[in-house]
């Protein structure tokens, strides 16, 4: 009877190993016997509910996949990962109170040495100052607001100092900020699309207004006439009256700065209905609109021909390692979203800072801005502000229900 039991237990153990993925289990044990590795915790802070849920879920999955591949180890440290949510179901987007509560939670948990986040710039503006006092490092895969790191077109008074009360920077990001986006979009509109007079719209939110202001500044610099600059209300029924105003100015181009979840679908729909299609009156949207969901919300016909910029590489231009990783992501979690690879790049930069440090929060922050790594999106290093040293913007175009890569531009220095 006893032997039968032993066999049964053995079989169960095998089954369990089978479910968990045998190889990982084996390496895990081997690593464990290595002994003195210090365990540290890295968390992600993303909006896991609402319009961006599909993308952020995949970002977390990719992060976990990468950690699994390196056996949850870097240098002498064992990495523990936990995903946090900065959104609420009722809002369907990031939420101020949740962001603040999250940051306080991280500060209190001494095992956490780094945060991968946030996704939305507005949320970072709340979390970073809280974490700054406790020297907790942040690397964001997707924040693009200018004022988070430096003064420039689109930043507000008192930025960025007000986010770093301790005087030491604890924040860096792996994507190009919006002043560059405004610059590149303005020259693209003028030089490549032949627009002479542009009307600017923003969603009245921190990010949207910032990128629109940066664009306006850049447009004036390159000699593009600005016919007007308006804010749209995310809760309005429709924007037909607003569009008649744009039509009456005779603008031959429209720039939209904002996030598409603020009723962006309706805005694009009414633009085409009142002002005309995207060939006649060219439309350029900021990266908050370059999402697959826009095709559903506005109707694919209305998005056809719209140009959108994003601070991300064309998936085909990823380096070999990145392509390989993306293929794995695609196989396990579906078609890679724009920021998925950047979530992993943010993790890689955080790990690079950790590797050079003494394993304390203070140590990670000290090594954050000097961190360098050959990431899945190519080699990254930070400039003195915590922005990536190589700044660029890719232009995509809505075609047949997909965002197709058009061209990539480096920032003018």
């Amino acid at each position, binding site marked *: 009877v006893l032997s039968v039991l032993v066999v049964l237990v053995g079989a169960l153990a095998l089954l369990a190993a089978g479910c968990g993925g045998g190889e990982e289990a084996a390496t895990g044990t081997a690593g464990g016997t290595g002994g003195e590795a210090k365990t540290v915790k890295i968390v992600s802070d993303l909006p896991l*509910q*609402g*319009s961006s849920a599909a993308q952020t879920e995949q970002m977390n999955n990719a992060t976990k996949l990468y950690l699994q591949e390196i056996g949850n180890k870097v240098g002498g440290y064992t990495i523990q990962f936990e995903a946090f949510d900065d959104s609420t*179901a*009722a*809002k*369907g*987007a990031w939420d101020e109170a949740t962001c603040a509560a999250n940051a306080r939670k991280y500060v209190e948990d001494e095992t956490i040495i780094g945060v991968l986040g946030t996704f939305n710039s507005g949320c970072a503006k709340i979390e970073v100052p809280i974490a700054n006092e406790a020297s907790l490092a942040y690397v964001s895969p997707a924040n693009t607001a200018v004022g988070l790191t430096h003064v420039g077109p689109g930043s507000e008074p008192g930025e960025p100092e007000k986010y770093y009360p301790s005087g030491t920077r604890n924040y860096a990001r792996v994507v190009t900020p919006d002043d560059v986006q405004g610059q590149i979009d303005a020259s693209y509109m003028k030089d490549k699309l032949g627009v002479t007079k542009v009307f600017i719209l923003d969603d*009245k939110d921190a990010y949207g207004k910032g990128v629109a202001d940066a664009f306006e500044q850049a447009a004036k610099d390159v000699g593009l006439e600005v016919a*007007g600059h*308006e*804010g*749209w*209300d995310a*809760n*309005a*029924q*429709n*924007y*037909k*009256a*607003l569009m*008649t*105003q744009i*039509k*009456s100015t005779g603008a031959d181009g429209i720039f939209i700065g904002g996030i598409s*979840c603020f*009723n962006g*679908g*309706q805005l694009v*729909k009414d633009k085409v*209905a009142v002002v005309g299609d995207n060939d006649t009156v060219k439309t350029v949207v900021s990266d908050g609109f370059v999402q697959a*969901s826009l095709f*559903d*919300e*506005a*109707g694919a016909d209305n998005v056809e021909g719209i140009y959108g910029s994003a601070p991300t590489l064309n998936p085909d231009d990823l380096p070999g390692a990145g392509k390989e990783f993306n293929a794995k992501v695609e196989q396990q979690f579906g078609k890679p979203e724009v920021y998925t690879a950047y979530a992993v790049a943010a993790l890689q930069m955080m790990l690079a800072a950790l590797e050079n440090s003494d394993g304390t929060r203070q140590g990670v922050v000290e090594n954050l801005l000097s961190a360098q790594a050959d990431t899945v999106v190519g080699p990254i290093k930070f400039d003195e502000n915590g922005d990536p040293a190589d700044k660029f913007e890719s232009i995509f175009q809505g075609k047949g229900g997909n965002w197709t890569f058009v061209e990539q531009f480096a920032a003018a220095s």
Partner: protein
Amino acid sequence: VATAETTARPLPTRRIPVSQWLLWIFGAILLIATFGWLLKEFIGSPSRFIEVGLIGVTNGSIYALVALGYTLVYGIIELINFAHGDNFMIGSFETHSIVTEGAFQLPLYPTTLVLGIPLGTTAVAASSGAQRAYSIAMALFFSMLLCMTINVTIERLGYKPLRNQPRLAPLITAIGFSFLLQNIALIWKNASPQPVPDIFPQGNLISTHGVTYDWGAFIVIVITIPLLLLLSWLVRATKAGKAMRATAQDQDAAGMMGINVDRTISFTFALGGALAGAAGAIYAMYIGNTKFDLGFRLGLFAFTAAVLGGIGNLNGAVLGGILLGEIAALNDAGFLFNLGARWTNTVIFSILILILVFKPSGLLGEQTPEGQ
């Protein structure tokens, strides 16, 4: 001694204080400036002005339909039915189900338990005219039916037991139902915007001299006006309407005259619900987008419209709704002192404050048990 002093004091003169005069002068200047400005804009670009005006009427008639629901209920039991806006949103969700899923759906918890009755109403812009007409009719019918049922149920469960309690009690219940409906919608179709295909006839009905007026907007009016006339007839000329008016004036007396007060109040809620359902269906099909939190904001606007026109007053609700849509459109188009879309909400609520300062009972006067 005290009595002597009191009687000795001269009677207060009924002189209007200077501050009141100043207020009126300020109001008059503001009114003249606004109309002067609008006239200037009209002369500047008449065709665009007319086009924007038409957009305002269309958007305003949706406010009007929702505002009528608030005003009907307020007129009869003096309750601000906060759940009304969310009921409207549920109507738009039902229309989304009927047009995109081709089925009447009833959301049950959890989502996997959505009850569906297939109707074959799935339609897109390219569907045949007959199919789209069938879809529009079914969407209107079932949205109205569902919202009617919800409104009556809410009244029976939540408001009736509290009818003789302090007025705050049903108000809080109403807010509770508002959140309840919002969360049901959240579970039903999640937080992202729900696109509805354009099944109203496409293209322009009128297109002359730079003025365009599309078919969709025309259909909104074609559906709205008969509904308003029907409601007006119901309240004015039928027995049920007479009972409603009597109940609004004095519930106790109405009861003594043999009017079934409970049934009359339920009937009022049914009417309000049907209008919310119709507005939801029209909104979903004309605007082409709906979202779970739509009801709160649009409900607030519609309530504002009802107050603007005079709460409890049916004509007032329609006037208030259209006026609100018109102000929003004119300001969106930059016709009001060049303020522009960024300031639309501020403008609307400033106008509300001004009207309440100068005419606290609204443009056409309150019609409530107290106000009459």
